[in-house]
């Protein structure tokens, strides 16, 4: 859609496709190559944030290239399949931790910036309230992601350990571990996959969302 407004993009694509087979006189810019060059020359290491963070995996590269538009269907399917394979269920089979600790994590927006000291999950927050409504009490919440208020209750979770809840519990774990498994260009960080949060922290967030005692489900 946006591409239609910029014929220059088509020109650039055309050049790449033709792999410079003919020496066309019109000077067309290879924007993708120029972009890579620009990114490389513009950034430097600072603290824990090194320039290797600019490297994109398949998902990041494809979603960037789409400039906010939809992915080609085969690409989307391939990315979701690849990311699905990364999801690891909890080693002890337990999904639900302490919702109070989960709430603290949800409030905490810190971690992984060049002003943070360590990349260890223990120094990271979940950033949840930046994008989601979660409890009713916290009025300072973002709207980039959907509201998670009454997340478990709306899905009929009365006992997260019950077989009836298994599907939604595992789905939710998968979302937290790697959101790109079910939505290739999801805006949500891949908390488990990218080692932003550890298993215990993820369990605490699970409790915040799914524990019937959590304020989320009141």
């Amino acid at each position, binding site marked *: 859609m946006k591409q239609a407004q910029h014929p220059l993009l088509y020109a650039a694509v055309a050049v790449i496709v033709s792999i410079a087979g003919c020496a066309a006189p019109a000077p067309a*810019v290879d924007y993708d190559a120029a972009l890579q060059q620009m*990114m490389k020359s513009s950034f430097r290491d600072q603290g824990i944030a090194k320039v290797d*963070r600019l*490297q994109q995996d398949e998902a990041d590269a494809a979603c960037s290239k789409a400039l*906010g538009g939809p992915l080609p269907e085969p690409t989307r399917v391939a990315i979701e399949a690849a990311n699905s394979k990364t999801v690891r269920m909890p080693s002890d089979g337990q999904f639900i931790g302490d919702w109070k600790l989960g709430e603290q994590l949800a409030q905490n927006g810190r971690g992984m910036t060049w002003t943070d000291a360590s990349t260890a999950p223990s120094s990271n927050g979940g950033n949840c*309230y930046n994008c989601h409504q979660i409890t009713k009490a916290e009025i300072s919440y973002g*709207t980039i992601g*959907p509201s998670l208020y009454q997340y478990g209750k709306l899905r009929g979770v009365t006992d997260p350990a019950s077989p009836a809840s298994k599907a939604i519990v595992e789905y939710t774990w998968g979302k937290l571990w790697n959101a790109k498994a079910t939505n290739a260009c999801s805006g949500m*960080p*891949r908390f488990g996959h990218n080692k932003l949060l550890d298993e215990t922290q993820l369990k605490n967030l699970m409790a915040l969302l799914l524990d019937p005692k959590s304020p989320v489900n009141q």
Partner: protein
Amino acid sequence: MTRILWACAAAAIAASSGAIWAQQKSSADGIAEYRAMLADGNPAELFEAKGEALWKTRRGPKNSSLEACDLGKGPGVVKGAFVELPRYFADTGRVQDLESRLLSCSETLQGISAAETAATPFGRGEQSNMEALVAYISAASNGMRFNLPQRNPEERKMFELGKRAFFYRAGSHDFACASCHGEAGKRIRLQDLPELTKNPGDGVGFAAWPAYRVSSGELWSMQRRLNDCYRQQRFPYPGYASDVTIALGVYMGVNAKGAASVAPSIKR
């Protein structure tokens, strides 16, 4: 981005009670009231006054003022320059934003090393002078409408690169500029996020910086704004006046065409 996140999301939003909606609305009203109370008496004025004096003061190894600096409208013309930046400058052969241009002018006219200023942390030494200068120069175009030139091929190239940089996802959190500024009507916590892929309107987004930052009590230039965006994006460190920052300036500035500048504004 436009794909519906979470199949059940719509149900969850629909279930949010009327009471919550009312609460949300009243917090928005409360914030609006807060901002209105602050608008009258913006400490950015303190920086404007300092910047105007700096522009006219003879300084540096060459003991010269910046009054002969060409910000794009001819040597010494300040009014109207801000709303046409970044733009291409023939003397440097580069597309430059306001701060990049000030680095060049300061080096040529005053003999102050551009590289040294660029390497100075925000808020210190020559960088604090830079903040005052951008407050003064942007204030001279307050109320004027953005109209970045796109005649030069280099300017058009920077727009295209800026657009791609804007959507460039990477890092530990897979964030891009577009993660927060790619859709209209979104917030982080209670802060409204301007949609920068199109013109968000007068005095919003690109048309609102530089700004006095209430949280730090400092005047933040566009370079500093972008720098902190990249920090929170969990990216590595963008060089001061580096090409990516200028390309983003062109992209956002062209998108803001016709929007009236309120810079220097006051922000959370």
